[in-house]
């Protein structure tokens, strides 16, 4: 695959020799790396002990609205995020119809709606996905 690396470095100064390419370093809170994790955790450890950060630290801070969306901190009717990521095991139980431990019903519902809206590329997605896939 070394050709690919070469190809990439050739492609980097795109736009020709006359004008230099623009580059944004991004915001401090933003994220530019997604590390691929196993889709089906091969050990019990990762299934039971995986966790879901709410919200995804890679996508900035905020509170969680009742429908699970991430809104500006302090929004009326929304909930401050949990201090620690949700545990896979707790989410599994809440998915089966319970509430998350240590929080009131509405707050649990909001957090769970956030979890249900997770999509690939977001922190916690693999955990959520593996909880829903008890088989291959």
């Amino acid at each position, binding site marked *: *695959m070394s050709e*690919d*690396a070469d*190809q*990439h*470095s050739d*492609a*980097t*100064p795109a736009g020709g020799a006359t004008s*230099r*390419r*623009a*580059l*944004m*370093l*991004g*915001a*401090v*809170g*933003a*994220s*530019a*790396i*997604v*590390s*691929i994790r196993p889709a089906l955790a091969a050990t019990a450890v990762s299934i039971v002990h995986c966790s879901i950060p709410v919200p995804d630290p890679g996508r900035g801070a905020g509170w969680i609205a009742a429908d699970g969306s991430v809104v500006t901190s302090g929004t009326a009717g929304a909930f401050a995020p949990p201090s620690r990521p949700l545990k896979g095991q707790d989410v599994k139980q809440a998915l089966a119809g319970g509430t998350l431990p240590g929080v009131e019903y509405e707050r649990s519902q909001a957090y769970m709606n956030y979890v249900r809206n997770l999509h690939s*590329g977001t922190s916690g997605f693999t955990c959520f996905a593996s909880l829903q896939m008890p088989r291959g």
Partner: protein
Amino acid sequence: MRDSDKNDLLYRAAPPQVLCVVPLDTFTAIYHRASGITHLVAPPVPEILTALGTAGSTLDQLIARLGDEYDLLDGDVAALAARLDELAAAGLVSTI
């Protein structure tokens, strides 16, 4: 860690021979042979890895080098430090 300490840190990129880099679209897939981990990265990560090199650079040296090569639309040292922290957490950059 205080910012003054951070300025003295030497950052090193993983050597090119342990990286397999495949541009897909705005994203680039990187396989890191040393860790066996695949990373999907967006700009400015590939550019930082290329500019950083394996010899070791401080934040100020790196931002100067990036400025030579690119039009930096936001020449923010704090943002660059955040990117490098992210790269270090992923194992693609080391400070030791």
